[in-house]
Structure formats: C-alpha cells, structure tokens
C-alpha cells in the first residue's frame, strides 16, 4: 500500500493518523505525569517512581524516533508542536533525528564518512565501559554533524524548528531550575539525560559486531513480544532500517516476512535483558565480529542512495506545516 493510500485508510481516526498512535501519546503522558508528580509532590520522590521516570524517558526517545519517521497526528502543525513536547522529555531537539538518524544512521554513511553513531567510536577493552561511554562520543559527534548539516540543508524550516524545540526544552527545564533547583536537577534532568543517553546506546547494542555493509545482516533484532509492545516494535531493527517508510505497527509482521528468511539467525535475540547481561556483564571483553559472509540471501531492496533520497523527501514533507 502506498503511503498516501495508507494514510487515507487511517484518516477516520480522530486526531491521530492511526489508532496505534494512542500508545505513543500514552507513553508520553505517563512520562510527563511521573516527572510532574516528582516535582510537585515529595512523597513521589521514591525509587519506583524515579526508576519508572527514567524508563519512560527512554520510551519518550523511542517516540521521538517514531514521530520523526511518521508524525503521530493528522495536523502537521500539531506534529511540530509535539516535537517540542518530546524535546523537553529528552533535553535535546527532536528534529536532530532527521539528519542524525533518518539520513545518516539509516544508511551508515555521512557522504563517505562513518555514521555519527558508529559502534567503532568506542574502544575500551572492558566492554561494559564501551556501553557506558558510548553516548559521550556519539552524542557530540551527532550534534556536531547536525550543525554541519544544518548549514547546507535544503529543508526550509529545519533551523527555525530546531531552535524552537531547543528553546522549549531548555527554557522549560530552566524555569523548573528557577522554581526549585535541586528537585529539577535530581528528578527532572537526571531522567531526561538517562533517556537521551540510552537511545544513543541503542545504536551500539543494535549494530555492534554486525556487518553494516550487508543489506540484511546490519542489525541485531530483539523479538520479545512484551518488549516490542512497550517499545512500539523498535526491537525489529533490520526491517526498520530497510523499510523506513513502514509504520512501526507493521514491523513485526514484516520482520517475519522479509528479514527472517534472509538474515543470519544469530541476529535475532529473544531478550534484550539477556543479551545485555551476556554481552556487557558476564563477559569482560568485546565479542568478536560475527562472520556473516554468505549468510545473506538476496537483497530485494533499492539502493541505499535511493532510500536516502526517499527519507529526505519524507522528512521534508513532514516538517512543512
């Protein structure tokens, strides 16, 4: 189904483009409620609420990711406002995802230079340190890349929208600092930073030791059903890379149909928690690169350049109110 036809088929849903989007709206509502509760109601400043806020901050960044691929709402203006709301939750401008994720990371290439969040940017021998340190490198590389891209971007509203999101995210956080410095620092900023940094770490988790030159063996997938419900199917990463225009609610089926017959089965992990424990806690050293040569069975995809051009057109259309 073309994206236009797909959109018209879902046009009857009120406010949002698809009814599944309410899950994303709900995630953000829960996250803001947790932050608000901790800020205004001292009994909420507890381990379970704080831990939940950190987790939902990560989910807020997952929503940023999905929203920057396909806007949640029918109204483009509302989608731009929603980006600012999401930016506060992660303390970075959500529109940074357009160059950093949609245009560079999806194709593992920045005009001949490596992806800004390439797993190779960390090199500690103790692998857990790589996981911890990754955002310290990938974050600055990403924002420096975004600044360079903004200078030459053809996207007419990018810079203004980016500034609005930055102003809202940092402005609201600043206001909270003025109202109550310590509560803002401990119960707003720490969860914000946790989510923003964890979404960067996902790049390492999903791509380290895979083969980014391959069309079907470039990503690690986490296929647990419960995990993918709350993560809005972000565990199905290979198909998302290759079919970026596909809505997140359709990824599980597409993964079974297109990825499973083509990829090396070692790249499907049943549980992210088990993978993290095995890779970063139970083993000291970074694992060897997987030998994935010969595992791929046919591409069936258009070129990466073509897909990048499509992603660029799509992002430009979504950004124009």
């Amino acid at each position, binding site marked *: 189904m073309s994206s236009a036809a797909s959109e018209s088929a879902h046009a009857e849903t009120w406010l949002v483009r698809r009814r599944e989007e309410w899950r994303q709206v709900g995630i953000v509502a829960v996250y803001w409620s947790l932050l608000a509760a901790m800020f205004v109601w001292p*009994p*909420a*400043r*507890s*381990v*379970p*609420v*704080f831990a939940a806020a950190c987790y939902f901050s990560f989910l807020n960044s997952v929503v940023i990711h999905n929203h920057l691929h396909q806007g949640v709402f029918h109204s483009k203006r509302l989608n731009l406002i929603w980006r600012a709301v999401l930016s506060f939750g992660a303390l970075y401008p959500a529109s940074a995802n357009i160059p950093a994720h949609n245009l560079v990371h999806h194709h593992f290439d*920045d*005009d*001949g*230079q490596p992806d800004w969040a390439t797993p190779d940017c*960390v*090199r*500690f021998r103790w692998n857990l*340190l790589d996981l*911890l*340190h990754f*955002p*310290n*490198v990938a*974050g*600055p*590389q990403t*924002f*420096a890349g975004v600044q*360079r891209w903004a*200078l*030459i*971007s*053809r996207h007419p509203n990018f*810079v203004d929208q980016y500034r609005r999101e930055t102003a809202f995210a940092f402005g609201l956080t600043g206001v909270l600092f003025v109202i109550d*410095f*310590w509560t803002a*620092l*401990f*119960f707003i*900023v*720490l969860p914000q930073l946790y989510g923003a940094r964890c979404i960067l770490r996902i790049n390492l988790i999903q791509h380290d030791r895979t083969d980014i030159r391959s069309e079907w063996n470039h990503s690690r997938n986490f296929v647990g059903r419960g995990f993918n419900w709350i993560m809005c199917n972000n565990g199905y990463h290979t198909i998302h890379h290759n079919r970026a225009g596909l809505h997140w609610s359709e990824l599980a089926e597409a993964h079974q149909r297109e990825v499973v017959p083509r990829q090396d089965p070692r790249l499907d992990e049943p549980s992210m928690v088990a993978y993290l424990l095995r890779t970063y806690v139970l083993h000291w050293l970074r694992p060897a690169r997987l030998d994935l040569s010969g595992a791929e069975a046919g591409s069936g995809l258009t070129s990466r350049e073509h897909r990048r051009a499509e992603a660029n057109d799509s992002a430009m259309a979504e950004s124009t109110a």
Partner: protein
Amino acid sequence: MIGLTGMLVLELDGMTMAVIALSLFWIHVLLISGAGVMDLVELGRLRRRVLAARAGEVRSARGPGGLLARNWVEQLGRLDRRGGPRQIHFHDRAQHSEVFGGQVALAEGGELELVPASAGQAAVWPELGERAKRAGQVDAERFGQAAVAAGKAKGFERIVETRIVVGDRVWVIDGEPASRMILADHDPRAWLARSIGLVLALVIGNVLVAGLCTLLALASPHFGWVSMIGAAGALGWFLAVQPLGVAVHDAVRSPDSAFLRGRWQDG
C-alpha cells in the same frame, strides 16, 4: 502493591540523590579521561618512532614530475543555504597516502632508498596548518562554477593534495613489521608534542574541573548557594566535556587522516 508508606520506605532524599548524581558524574568524567589515556598510550607508542625520525632532502623521485610522495583528501563541497554571502562548506570523504619511491639525502649523512608504497604500507603527513590555509584560499575565477555545482545534489567535488617533490625537506619514520612507514613534510616532533599536550590537558583538566565542582557541591551548608553553584558547574561540565573530549580526540588524529573540512566564501 506499594502504598504511600511503602513508597516512603524507598524515599529518595536529597542526600541520596546527590550521591547518585555525583557518582554518575564521576563515572563519566573518568571514562572521558580514560579514553584520553588511551589516546596518550597510542601517542606514546608513536613517540618512540617519531623521536627517531630522520631528516633529509629529496634527491630523486620515481613519481610524475619528481613526485616522491603525496597525501590527498577527497572533499565534497555543498552550498550554504542560510542566505547571506555565498559559502561552500567542505566535507572530507576520504584521505589517502602514496609513496612513489626515490632517494633521500639524510642530514646525518648517507642516502636512504625509499620503495614505492600505497595506503596501508605508508602514511604521508602534511603540515596541517599550511594545508588548511592552502585549501581555504578561494579561487575567485573558480568560485562561481564551484558554487553552482555545490548547489546541486551531487555537490562540488575537489581534491586537496600535498606533494613531496625533489628538493623538499622530508622527515622519514621507518616502517616496522607492525606499523607503516611515515613521510612528513615538516618536523613531526612539533605535532607530537602539541598532541600529547592537548590530551594531557584534557585528561588532567577534566579531573581538576570535576574535582572543583564536586568540592563546591559538597560545601557546607549542604544544598546552600555554594553547593548549588557546584552542582550547576558539574552539570555544565558534564555537558561541555563530552564535545571537548571528542574535539581533542579529533585534533590528535595522525596528520595523514586528520580532518580538513573548511569553507570557501565569495568575495
């Protein structure tokens, strides 16, 4: 189900949160300094070789036009879209080195025969400041055409080449079984000293600034004004030292693979 009482048992008071926040702060301060130490270790390995560099003058060369060796950067220029004076921003796509072979008369006496070597076997180190200056010089005649190309999807492609030819001064760092031969068009000890200095400043400065912020944050009375300034400083440093760490790491890339980038501006 955890009721209000249960939640209070797991209460996170200010002191607990301060310990958590400072612990996270220090983990990342030490990670960034640790990554700097890894850069220092690599520079230290290089130091032994660089100190043994042999200076000389190129006597003969087998490359075209008396070319002993060259380093070149493939760049793509794209037009600035913000309005104002026309500018082209350059982006490095790849860096390469090649040695054509030839003879170098050594300052210490004697001659050195260099065999041809391509990427992977040899690295050619340009003097970075001079290269940046040369690459940034706008060719007024060429700018118009370049700007038109830079405004198109394909962009404006160019190559910035550094050549070592007959008559040039050269510093030779011999290859070892596990490392490449290096040819520099400048004394590489200056680059090395600057690189080591930069990384040392990051490694030590990072810990010192973090320590100062921590001392202020822990000042009595806890959570008073001084303490608040320390915490704000720690947050600011946490956000600032990350790009600083990346900038230093990029600044000490070996000259054959150092970023060039740069821009041209009309007029």
